[in-house]
């Protein structure tokens, strides 16, 4: 009746998951209770949960990503502290079975439920604003994407207190992940959480390729687009190309596990190595999905905070598309040691080395953007400078790993672990923090506190290097990854330094929390009055902060690169805004609950499939299908924003801009 589910699924005898699960349940119950008590449900339901506005969805993605970061970081603290303690005979506080789940959860959550939602959140929030349009190509599908990702994250968190998580690492290699060696539900939790959120991500990819290619404001040819939008295009193209591989491979593993098929089994004609091949054909492009928009964020920050247009726009575009295509051709470098022989290894080693050229072009362009500019060392710029230093070193260790004979020595050692954290943290995480600071005023109408932001940056930067330099050294000394206890007591020094580094990073995280709280408390003082707090160059800074739900009262007509910069300079020179435009009613898509309903049924279906409660899975699928048909039957797709409303919002914007113009004129006169 309930498949494999029974009361023994709850970890009565494991204090840590039990406690964590209880705390989570209490936190969720508390939050839901608070919302009910304050009668916020109607507001939340109409304005956020059923929203198809790309800005709202973007903010929700970022929120989800931040939650994922917190949970993933907690796992990281556990891992570093366990290894620092369990050296040369110590046992630490995590059993091997538990430790294996911790590092598997850490990787899975950080990639799928922290980095991806954060990057996609930025893509969502910024892209339509920069393209001068009102929303993405498929707004309702956007909502579905978000809620499916949230559904996956919910399933992973449920695994904390109902059942267990996978012990196979963030990519579950067979035969270990097959039904014979992982008979529990852990791998199934992983499979269904990732599958469900993977469908959401694929939809996002389709959405953004279509948006960038088919929905730009008049006059914005592809070569006049901000670079961030090019990176969104490249990243979304990769998503469309490779997420089906993930879906297929995980489906094959599920078929093996549930029905006893032989895709990846060790016997009867299965081929486990095919799993590695396929999953890395997804896995390598995946990291470029993450890093390309990060590069886009840096392009925006470097040009804005240097007061100069981005250096070498066309070479940046070329480098971005080059990386997009070549990233599909390098995946074997993740399994050089699996035995494909010298010809195959050499080919992929060469392609891996070549792809570094694209990034090199970008780094030079960013540096040349700063040269000759008036560099302002705001918090986003600090993160960007930290990125250049950190990522270049991480990239160099990557090129080292690209050489097959060298990789044979350090594959799956702590050197590898240090390398990929170096590039992901230095590249993606630093970009996300820079972008958070940069676009926060656009989203919420007030800036983040600068001082706490600077402190957060330095603690994070220091903490990162303190954590991972010892791991580089340990890797070269022969320490392998994923060790629950470390038999070589000489390594305890390095491991302790690394644990200290995590503590420093934690201070950085605390600084960020304080920064957020202080900013909220001081939001009147930090208010963004004009919509253009950083002297920006692209179209999103033409809107007020926060941007109205229809983005632009009148669709911009663009005639050059850096659309907004040209308009701004003209206004400042002529000391007046251009004439008030003729306002017209605006058509916007209606909100829809289909995203939430689909994800709810997806969660039920996923849970049922994990525990093999077949009737419940069938019901879940039926419910999802029915919900979709009901949605498809709706008669009203759009509503009209009346002219008066549009005029009112835009006139307020124009007033703020006029005030800014007067202030600039006064400063110019007094200078």
């Amino acid at each position, binding site marked *: 009746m309930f498949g494999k589910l029974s009361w023994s699924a709850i970890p009565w005898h494991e204090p840590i998951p039990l406690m964590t699960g209880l705390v989570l349940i209490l936190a969720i119950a508390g939050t839901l209770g608070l919302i009910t008590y304050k009668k916020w449900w109607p507001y939340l339901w109409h304005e956020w949960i059923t929203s198809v506005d790309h800005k709202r969805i973007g903010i929700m993605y970022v929120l989800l990503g931040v939650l994922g970061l917190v949970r993933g970081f907690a796992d990281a603290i556990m891992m570093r502290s366990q290894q620092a303690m369990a050296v040369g005979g110590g046992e630490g506080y995590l059993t091997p079975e538990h430790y294996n789940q911790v590092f598997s959860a850490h990787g899975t959550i950080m990639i799928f439920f922290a980095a991806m939602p954060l990057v996609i959140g930025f893509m969502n929030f910024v892209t339509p604003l920069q393209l001068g349009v009102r929303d993405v190509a498929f707004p309702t599908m956007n909502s579905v994407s978000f809620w499916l990702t949230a559904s996956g994250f919910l399933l992973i968190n449920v695994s904390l207190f109902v059942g267990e998580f996978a012990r196979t690492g963030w990519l579950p290699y067979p035969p270990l992940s097959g039904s014979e060696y992982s008979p529990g539900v852990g791998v199934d939790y992983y499979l269904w959480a990732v599958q469900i959120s993977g469908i959401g991500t694929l939809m996002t990819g389709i959405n953004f390729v279509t948006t960038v*290619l*088919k929905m730009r404001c*008049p*006059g914005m040819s592809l070569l006049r687009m901000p670079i961030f939008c090019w990176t969104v295009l490249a990243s979304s*193209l990769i998503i469309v*190309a*490779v997420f089906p*591989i993930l879906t297929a491979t995980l489906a094959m593993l599920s078929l093996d596990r549930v029905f006893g098929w032989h895709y990846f089994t*060790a*016997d009867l004609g*299965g*081929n*486990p*190595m*095919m799993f590695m*091949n*396929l999953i890395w*054909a997804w896995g390598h492009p995946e990291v470029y999905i993450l890093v390309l928009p990060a590069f886009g964020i840096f392009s925006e920050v470097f040009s804005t905070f240097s007061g100069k247009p981005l250096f070498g726009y066309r070479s940046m575009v070329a480098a971005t598309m080059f990386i997009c*295509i070549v990233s*599909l*051709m390098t*995946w*074997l470098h993740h399994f050089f040691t*699996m*035995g*494909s*022989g010298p*010809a*195959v290894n050499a080919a992929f080693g060469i392609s891996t080395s070549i792809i570094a050229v694209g990034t090199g072009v970008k780094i030079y362009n960013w540096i040349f953007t700063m040269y000759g500019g008036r560099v302002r060392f705001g918090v986003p710029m600090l993160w960007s400078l930290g990125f250049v230093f950190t990522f270049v070193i991480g990239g160099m260790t990557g090129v080292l790993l690209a050489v097959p004979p060298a990789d044979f020595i350090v594959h799956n050692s702590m050197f590898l672990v240090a390398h990929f954290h170096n590039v992901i943290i230095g590249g993606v995480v630093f970009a996300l923090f820079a972008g958070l600071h940069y676009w926060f005023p656009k989203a919420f109408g007030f800036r983040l506190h600068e001082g706490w932001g600077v402190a957060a940056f330095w603690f994070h930067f220091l903490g990162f290097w303190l954590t991972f330099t010892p791991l580089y050294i340990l890797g070269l000394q022969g320490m392998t990854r994923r060790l629950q206890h470390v038999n070589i007591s000489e390594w305890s020094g390095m491991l302790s330094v690394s644990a200290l580094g995590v503590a420093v990073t934690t201070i950085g995280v605390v600084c960020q929390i304080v920064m957020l709280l202080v900013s909220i408390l001081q939001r009147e003082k930090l208010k963004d009055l004009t919509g253009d707090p950083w002297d920006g160059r692209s179209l999103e800074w*033409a809107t007020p902060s926060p941007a109205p739900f229809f983005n632009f009262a*009148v*669709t*911009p*007509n*663009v*005639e050059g690169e850096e*659309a*907004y910069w040209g*308009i701004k300079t*003209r206004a400042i020179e002529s000391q007046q*805004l*251009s*004439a*008030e*435009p*003729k306002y*017209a009613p605006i058509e916007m898509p209606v909100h829809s609950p289909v995203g939430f309903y689909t994800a709810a049924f997806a969660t039920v279906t996923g849970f049922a499939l994990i525990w093999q409660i077949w009737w419940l899975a069938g019901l879940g699928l039926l419910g999802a299908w029915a919900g979709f048909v009901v949605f498809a039957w709706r008669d009203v797709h759009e509503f009209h924003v009346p002219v008066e409303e549009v005029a009112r919002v835009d006139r307020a914007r124009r007033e703020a801009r006029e005030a800014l113009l007067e202030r600039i004129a006064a400063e110019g006169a007094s200078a």
Partner: protein
Amino acid sequence: MSGLEYDPAPFAGALDDREDHAPGDEPLESAGHYIYNSNLGLGFSIILTVAAFVMASTQLIYAPAIPVALLVLAIAQMGVHLVYFLHITTGPDNTNNVLALAFGILVVGLIVVGSIWIMSSMNHYMMPMDELMRQQV
């Protein structure tokens, strides 16, 4: 003429149907033309399908060449479907669709050819799985 404060009425959302359209969609083509294309597509497909079946069942072609011939016929028929049923052409109104298709073909090629190359190379250099398992005592 241009600037932020101008809503260009002739151009807002006015991409002409003649200049760009989705695959398979020919809004301005007459029904007769459409049906004519479908008929041609069906005819060619039938010929190519029958040819494939005949080739597989008889000795008309030098035996070792049959797999290659089948592959060629399959690719030709996929092309027939793309052109006559999905109206993918090289015209300027189809550029985006062709580029997307080319990208898809690239990815498919990389996966299929790449996997075959990698896995056969591994089979060449590595001990077979069942022997490997027998070594695990």
